[in-house]
């Protein structure tokens, strides 16, 4: 048998099809995952994303039903429609996962994030920071003569916008909770 005439580096050199399959638009989806609150569940969910190469843009988790031993994980992820479908199906396979809801497609939903901003400054910058915070309905949760800590609640876009405005005014630290989301209505 003679060797096949295959160029070096060609896909056919591999046991796999090396070309990536679909070129498709990337969408951003918010998933609500109801899980049994047992050790390792979060590791399973995160391990799934890491192991299968999915993106996590935001992640929040806490027990939401102490009595029923249930926690709610909210993940914002992105991918092609096919990948998003796979992510949901793969999440559904995890044994302690009770339910996966795609808030992006299952009707209207509300999303909120909480962020704390430390802004250090004096003089006009300081006054400007307070003025803008007021417009954003941010609360001042700590203040010293040279700094504020603002608390902002809102959509991720609102928090991004606030961060942009604070940057030239002496923004030194930010912490964000990640997105919490619920579907609207009953």
């Amino acid at each position, binding site marked *: *048998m003679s*060797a*096949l005439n*295959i160029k070096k580096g*060609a*896909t*056919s*050199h*591999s*046991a*796999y*099809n*090396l*070309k990536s*399959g679909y070129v498709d638009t990337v969408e951003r989806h918010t998933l609500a995952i109801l899980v*049994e609150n047992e*050790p*390792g569940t979060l*590791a*399973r969910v995160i*391990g799934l994303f890491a*192991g299968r190469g999915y993106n996590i843009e935001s992640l929040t988790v806490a027990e939401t039903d102490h009595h029923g031993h249930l926690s709610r994980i909210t993940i914002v992820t992105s991918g092609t429609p*096919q990948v998003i*479908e*796979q992510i949901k*199906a*793969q999440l*559904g*396979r*995890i*044994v*302690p996962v*009770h339910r996966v809801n795609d808030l992006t497609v299952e009707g209207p939903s509300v999303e909120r994030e909480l962020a704390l901003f430390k802004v250090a400054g004096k003089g006009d910058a300081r006054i400007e920071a307070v003025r803008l915070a007021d417009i954003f309905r941010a609360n001042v949760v700590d203040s010293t003569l040279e700094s504020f800590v603002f608390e902002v609640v809102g959509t991720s876009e609102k928090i991004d916008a606030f961060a942009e405005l604070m940057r030239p005014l002496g923004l030194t630290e930010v912490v964000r909770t990640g997105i919490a989301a619920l579907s609207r209505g009953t």
Partner: protein
Amino acid sequence: MTKAMTGAKMVVQALVDQGVDVVFGYPGGAVLPIYDEIFQQNHIQHVLVRHEQGAVHAAEGYARSTGKLGVALVTSGPGATNAVTGLTDALLDSIPILVLTGQVPTFMIGSDAFQEADTVGITRPCTKHNWLVKDTDDLARTIHEACHVATAGRPGPVLVDIPKDVQFATGTYTAKTGRRSHYNPQVKGDINAITDLVKALEKAKRPLFYTGGGVINSGDAATQLLRELVAATNFPITSTLMGLGCYPASGDNWLGMLGMHGLYEANMAMHDCDLMINIGARFDDRITGVVEKFSPNSKKAHIDIDPSSINKVIHVDIPIVGDIAHVLEDLLKVWKSRGRKTNAEGVSKWWDQINEWRSIDCLKFTQTGKVIKPQYALSRLEALTKKYDRYITTEVGQHQMWAAQYLGFEDPNRWMTSGGLGTMGYGTPASIGVQMAHRDSLVINVAGEASWLMNMQEMGTAMQYKLPVKQFILNNERLGMVRQWQELLHGERYSSSWSESLPDFVKLAEAFGAKGIICSDPADLDDAIMEMITYDGPVIFDCLVEKHENCFPMIPSGKAHNDMILGENADTANAIQGAGGALV
């Protein structure tokens, strides 16, 4: 029933309640209390393997050949890490097994204690689910839940990690029916989707059943219903490596295995069909080849119990989530109630086309000269063992593909092979697991010499438990499959693909107390095989075969199904007439 007992006793009690009769295992400090309990009872037989990987593959062989749960028991640390390959193998092939691991005492977890490993952490991605039990009161319930999870829905491996203090402590035993699990995958298919499929069946001119391991996972009812469906519709049927036996190889509608090393007619039919009915297969890359060119003009239906298998690789038009037996039952009902229609005329033309493809006889080979061709060895093995109550396991490589091509399987659960992970070293321990379940059957491991060396220590287990497993080694003194790729794709540069310094297999057999047979002359082969079959005990059969034989047909990756390389002997002159297209 609730009862107070030690954790170690609970383990044995829970297994007995689950109907487990054999455990494959290897002791160590962290499981000694459980071994002590095993010693004091007669319900469960413990099989002492020679390596924990062997225990897990043996449990897989036991499970696949019986349709029941396979169980392995290993110690903490190295015992657990040695089990990882077997767990991953079972995950990829959907084999229901339970692995019990010992762990250091709860109060020492996290202290880098002696033989401590983060077993649940390490095995999280290679189990369907796993548990670390920290309280003896939870132990029995967890084992029952683990057995349920392993076998329900898409089967798979589960692991329960049991710290030593939990084994020693006394707690309350929870009986099997103690609590209902929230894990209950959907088994009934959506009736609208099933009806859509029936409508498609009625119209199809070039239909094809593409079946897989899921049929075998689903059980005997699924196999029966599938056979009924094939007979009633007269549609052709092919299967993946994992589904061999779900439809009899002697059946009229059987096209043979499909895929990278599948039969020409099966792959051509996949490429040209207008309705593909996937029943329990997962569009593996050994099947699809390059996805853009995969069966471009067909409507595709997919029946699978795991929603993540659907639309993962190939977009399908009619997805049906459910258990195959349940779905096929409904499918047949709906089809019959609508008048049992098919497009008989179209299907008959389709058969003409298929028979043309069949006529090229892609598995044809000629045995000439004094060297045994591996295809000849397997054809003779098939002819001489077919009438036996036979189970086949394999290792991984060319011999595995030839076994799939040249051996015929009439029933499910008769063919145990590592498909998804492709684990060399699977076959010997798997043959032991199979033989434990089927004491009086003929169990043959079709092996390559390189794979066989990977878990050959298990011959000791075969001897100890008087398991007459036959190790049929196609010895080409090469890592044949690797060598083939190097020949075809890497300019014949045979980098590290020679099996050097091989042992004398006959002497090796004798050293274990087994029988060794060597055969190199085609004229002696039949007698030698008969000697192997009739010998009452384990045999290592060293079958010296052609060293540079290639395994064909083959679809090189990046190519479509109608772009196969055929063997030199295939009747290619005939093939060109087919609608197929270019042959490389």
